[in-house]
């Protein structure tokens, strides 16, 4: 990119917070998804909201596209920038600004690591609920962009249910505050609109989150089944009984095998077709009584064994295999394509059969670990992307799995976002009119489409299709390296 841009950015943040050498930039060529790669033109690391404003204002002035990035743990290729774009990394902005235990609110900068926030509020008897598997590394800002989920979202909702207010730098560099600490908006629900917009509406520089009380009592139960169908039916029965577990997670045989062969071995039975984790929380008496009901349902539906834990240590052991499943699967092959789709829960057994069929057809290794309670699947394919034949088969299999999920009324993503990875699937679930409306809303926030360009909405599929080229004037645009 043009050296004048490098100079201007250096002036804003200081030399040590701009990366421009090829080897440095290569670090940012991928996020958590190994199937997409793109080297950004420059990387800049602001340390304050003011620096973010100045950077965005500058980029808007010279009409250079930019991509905001947190820890880069995303799984949809959403935080990748093209060589003509500047990557704005927000991990330096990692301050927890305020914690209000009475109102149960915390105000954080976007670069705060998810798990760190929960650790900080735990001594106050509070927790920040959304807990994506990457929580030890991912940032709250990234969670806001992707509307991240996690195992405990079944009962408590995803990121959007826990964000009450945002300070946002819009793509023209202006600043606005959306929502209110109270959770009631000053007008339409722009916080709800902004969360999950994948960095295309602006950059959140200050995030006010809702905290929940740590439940008085928690019980974790682990059951194993001879068939996936029996495990799925247990899930439906538990929910039909009026019980809303804090989490309801399932792992299939391949996933259990990977976990048990790794250092994360949790003592899960390797001969089981499915292992189900059920977590109940609430008042001690209620949890006790509901645990008996759940136990009966599990046994009634054919659980071979049910283990139960209520102390923190014992529960952590039962959770260990689930929490480390992705790490364990990572050992099987150099690369892991983590997929994310949602189906109506009633179709779980049928869709699992279909995924197994696709696995056999393409001769791949697929391990399934998923949020069974809300039908959010993660079929994960272990492979080596250096082998072009395998990589092609992985792409085809992913596509077929996604098509199967959409065919039963599901969605192409439950918590990872669309990014670059799933942009081609968007017309499968949204018609041209709706995609056109999405693009129009994006242009409300970002008329010249500078923020994270080329993601989420396939412009060619919009009703009012027009050239992607916006009003950018080439003479002002900085040249490419």
């Amino acid at each position, binding site marked *: 990119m043009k050296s004048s841009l490098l100079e201007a950015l250096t002036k804003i943040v200081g030399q040590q917070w701009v990366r421009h050498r090829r080897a440095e930039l290569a670090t940012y060529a991928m996020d958590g998804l190994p199937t997409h790669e793109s080297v950004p033109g420059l990387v800049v690391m602001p340390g304050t909201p003011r620096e973010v404003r100045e950077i965005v204002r500058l980029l808007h002035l010279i009409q250079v596209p930019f991509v905001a990035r947190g820890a880069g743990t995303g799984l949809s290729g959403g935080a990748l920038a093209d060589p003509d774009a500047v990557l704005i990394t927000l991990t330096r902005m990692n301050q927890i600004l305020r914690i209000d235990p009475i109102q149960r609110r915390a105000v954080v900068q976007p670069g705060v690591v998810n798990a760190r926030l929960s650790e900080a509020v735990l001594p106050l008897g509070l927790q920040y609920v959304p807990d994506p598997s990457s929580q030890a590394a991912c940032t709250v800002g990234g969670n806001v962009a992707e509307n991240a989920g996690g195992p405990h979202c079944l009962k408590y909702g995803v990121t959007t249910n826990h964000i009450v207010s945002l300070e946002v730098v819009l793509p023209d560099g202006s600043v606005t*505050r959306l929502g209110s600490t109270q959770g009631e908006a000053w007008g339409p629900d*722009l916080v709800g609109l902004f969360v999950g917009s994948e960095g295309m509406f602006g950059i959140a520089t200050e995030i006010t989150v809702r905290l929940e009380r740590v439940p008085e009592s928690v019980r974790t139960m682990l059951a194993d089944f001879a068939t996936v169908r029996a495990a799925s039916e247990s899930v439906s029965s538990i929910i039909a*009984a009026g019980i809303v577990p804090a989490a309801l997670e399932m792992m299939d045989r391949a996933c259990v095998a990977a976990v048990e062969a790794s250092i994360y071995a949790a003592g899960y039975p390797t001969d089981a077709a499915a292992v189900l984790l059920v977590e109940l929380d609430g008042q001690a008496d*209620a949890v006790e*009584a509901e645990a008996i009901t759940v136990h009966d349902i599990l046994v009634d539906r054919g659980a071979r064994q049910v283990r139960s834990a209520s102390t923190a240590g014992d529960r952590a052991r039962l959770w260990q295999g689930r929490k480390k499943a992705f790490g364990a699967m990572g050992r099987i092959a150099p690369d892991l394509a983590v997929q994310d789709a949602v189906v*109506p829960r009633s179709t779980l057994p049928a869709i699992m059969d279909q995924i197994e069929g696709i696995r056999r057809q393409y001769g791949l290794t697929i391990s399934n670990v998923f949020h069974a309670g809300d039908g959010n699947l993660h079929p994960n394919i272990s492979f080596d992307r250096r082998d072009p034949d395998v990589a092609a088969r992985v792409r085809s299999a992913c596509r077929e799995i996604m098509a199967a999920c959409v065919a039963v009324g599901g969605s192409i993503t439950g918590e990872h976002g669309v990014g670059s990875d799933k942009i081609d699937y968007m017309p499968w679930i949204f018609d041209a009119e709706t995609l056109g409306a999405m693009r129009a809303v994006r242009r409300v926030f970002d008329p010249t489409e500078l923020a994270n360009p080329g993601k989420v909405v396939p412009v060619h599929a919009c009703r009012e299709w027009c050239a992607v080229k916006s009003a950018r004037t080439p003479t002002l645009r900085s040249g490419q390296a």
Partner: protein
Amino acid sequence: MVCSEERPHPHASLGAGMSDAIYTRLRALLGTTGVDRDVNGVPRATPESGDALSLVCRLAHEEGWKIRVEGRGTWLPSDAPADLAVSTRALEQIVSVSPADLVATVQSGTPLEALRRRLADYGMWLAVDPPGRPERSIGSVVATATAGPLRHGYGPVRDHVLGCTVATGDGRLVNAGGRVVKNVAGYDLTKLQVGGFGGFGIIAEVHLRLRALPRADVTLLARGTRDALTSAARELVSGHLLPGALELLSPALAAEADWMLAARFVGTDAAVQADVRRLGSLGELKWEPLPAERTAAFWSVAARGSLGGPITLRLGVLGDGVDEAIDLLAHDLDEGLVSAGAGLGMIRWTGDAPLERLRALRRAAATREIPMTLERAPWPIRRALGHFGAYREGVGQIVGRLRDTFDPGQCLSVALEGVE
């Protein structure tokens, strides 16, 4: 009441002839059963499908007609000036209920009570208890985001809406969200429609998140001074109690001499029993269980109380700000019909007041960082005050551009913001 000057409507002078022409065009589009006239003779379209709804909007957009958005006419008065009214009352099909997935798809004009009954047949429940009459349409509840006491345990209206189909002001049919409980595909356009008061389009259909019908549903009442009840409520919330609702009702709303605190516990028998036991052991309030057969009637009467005056507004506060906000209401308006979430906040006031008082209240609330939303009022008040106001810097421009996007011809007669 003083109201600001209305801009003369382009077709106002054309009178009955214009109205007849619109009536005829609508009949040609929807057939004879799809059009009638309201009490003032304004043509009223009652489309039966999302497609028909979008055709009406498209026609109005092409002709430059103003549309009054109506549900079943039980919440907002049908008084916005317009060339035609579009009512969702014929969109009353419960399209599908999927108990195994805890999802229902419902046309927007469906009366809440009809939906409640049908869901109960399946052992299902929608944990939303808005103010107003039982026959209020689900579309009205979603469009105005009017949550009731169950907001305490089950969240605001937005948490119950998985997706919706909306006809924009220029007749595009947009499908936001989906029918699965977890979904981050594309921008979350549903959030804009929930509480958008119809300013971003007319909702044709909603996908709702359901729960299993609770096995137990117990309400207990305590009476006392407001201070005593609000401080007791704060104690309860910090004592690991998990009520579905913890609502403070003013004497006028409760039709009692004192303030009333109503705690509703909903869920499995075990959970409800555990909470009720603990409630008795916490604090000094005397709790009186409501007989099971009176529970539904009690909450229904409380919900209807919000129709006891021409104006209803809500103040967004947190639990410990409830007292101060009610003081503010009492100072600027009157104590009147007040219902407040005593645990997590949110206050609803119903009564009558002149415009200047309401403006003063919004200003006073804004200085205390309390958003005030006008939920329901006669048109002159809505027009002058707006459903929303006191926007933060930059928000007004975003909202304005969003309205241009969803209603480029400014056909929808909805007063999101007031005129000074």
